[in-house]
């Protein structure tokens, strides 16, 4: 008699690896083994749907059939790890990059990278923005030691194609804008953020992007300012603060904290 774990491993092999052998021997005698197809179909269809919701522009760019075929291979290689499908599909951009049938669409992995950042922004946890009064209360000599914690919806990407323009034109169904795009590779630096009205994708130049990345990585403010050359970093910092891109800060070289970043709120971690 198979144990519960053996049954569950048998079904996993059937659904993910398409090997029905183990599971088929466990079924009641009158149950035709093709009943396993129903579960496999629900699994693949359900996860494909989750992937489509996270990558709507990729889906439109390649069409239903291509997307479903790519998703099926991707899902078999990268099945979901948790019952939280909003977080599923992080590896899809890299998969598309290595997927020979998509080779003709060189910009596709970059569009996917942007969509993943947008999806992360859409589903990011809510956090109160850093109150400027907290910063103002710091002694001047401490301000350079501030390490910011970015809002969970913030994403920073460097891509090689105008993924933002493609993404917007595709989701707006704007064929004229799509046709007018220059699809040659050129570096594009993006900042993604969820605002109350929706997700915003902003283009930055290389120096602005590096400064934002340093701040979001929690580098001490003075170090980030020192490295930022050729831009008005103080004005940029003011813009980040006004746009509520930070939720808290700590001070470099001390245990003192404004508010610690935390994925799950502290009182309910398991």
């Amino acid at each position: 008699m198979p144990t519960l774990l053996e049954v569950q491993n048998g079904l996993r092999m059937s659904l993910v690896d398409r090997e029905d052998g183990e599971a088929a021997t466990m079924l009641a005698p009158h149950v035709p083994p093709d009943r396993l197809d129903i579960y496999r179909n629900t699994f693949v269809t359900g996860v494909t749907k989750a992937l489509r919701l996270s990558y709507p522009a990729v889906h439109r760019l390649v069409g239903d059939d291509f997307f479903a075929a790519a998703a099926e291979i991707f899902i078999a290689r990268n099945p979901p790890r948790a019952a939280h499908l909003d977080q599923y599909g992080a590896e899809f951009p890299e998969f598309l990059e290595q997927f020979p049938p998509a080779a003709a669409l060189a910009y596709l992995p970059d569009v996917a990278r942007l969509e993943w950042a947008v999806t992360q922004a859409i589903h990011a946890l809510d956090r109160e923005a850093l109150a400027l009064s907290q910063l103002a209360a710091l002694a001047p000599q401490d301000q350079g030691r501030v390490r910011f914690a970015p809002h969970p919806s913030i994403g920073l990407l460097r891509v090689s194609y105008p993924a933002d323009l493609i993404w917007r034109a595709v989701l707006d169904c704007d064929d004229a804008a799509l046709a007018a795009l220059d699809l040659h590779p050129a570096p594009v630096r993006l900042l993604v953020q969820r605002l109350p009205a929706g997700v915003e994708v902003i283009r930055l130049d290389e120096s602005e992007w590096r400064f934002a990345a340093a701040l979001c990585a929690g580098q001490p403010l003075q170090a980030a300012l020192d490295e930022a050359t050729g831009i008005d970093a103080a004005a940029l910092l003011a813009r980040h603060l006004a746009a509520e891109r930070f939720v808290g800060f700590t001070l470099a070289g001390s245990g003192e904290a404004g508010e610690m970043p935390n994925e799950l709120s502290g009182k309910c971690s398991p």
Partner: protein
Amino acid sequence: MTGQHLSTTAVVGANPIPAQAGIGLRFQHHQAVVDSKPDVAWMEVHTENYMGGGTPLRYLDTVRRDYPISLHGVGLSLGSAEGLDLTHLARIRQVAERIEPALMSEHIAWSVVGGTYLADLLPLPMTEEALSVVCRHVEQTQTYLKRRILVENPSTYLTFAHSTIPEWEFITAVAERTGCGILCDVNNIYVSAHNHGWDASTYLAALPGAMIGEIHLAGHSVRPLADGTTLRIDDHGSRVAAEVWALYEEALARFGPLPTLIEWDNHVPPLDVLLGEARQASSRLAGAAKEARRADAA
């Protein structure tokens, strides 16, 4: 904490779900529900759809001011041999703390093995081993959430050779051992009974009425098989079938009026269609309530 203790102290919540019809709230109807505040007694959502922040949670924050909410989980995998995913359980509690639901429920099913989520409510072998695994996880969940949950009977398309316990006895045993309640999905009983040659009325009759806290109704589809028979698929993609309404009437006659939910997840119709289905449940609930009053008076 023992099941006995939980069963006697179970609190439904500050804003309990009435024995009336509710609808499953899906994101397609968020705006329409907020705008029109439809005349329906309560709403149920899938917990997993509100685990992030942003727009969905903002809608639910608004909706919960006007309606009692039930949180219905589809991903906890109570039947996993390897134990519960504690991170997932923590996410569930986080949603519960924010929404303060009147009811919380999960399934007699499993979906996670070896760290892989199989994105479906998969059938359990009906064995003593599976029963003790499910009971352990229900108790763990109730202790962690500090509340009673309901567990729902699944719809299934296959059974295992080594199953020894009828499904209705399995779910009853889970309720008796853990003090949890039962979410009686009448459509699932109908679908599984058809697919496995069980008698749906016998299934209903075997359930402990006092432990049933909610009823689910949904549409299903009928798939013809090569041998001329049919398989019923629980796809929540259409109106409730006439045969399921008849079985629902049987359930109400047996258990009395209970909170009843209309679920619709695929090919989601306009809100009015969903509300129409809820009204159909309401008229049957009103009949059952009248019947119950008559029985009390006699």
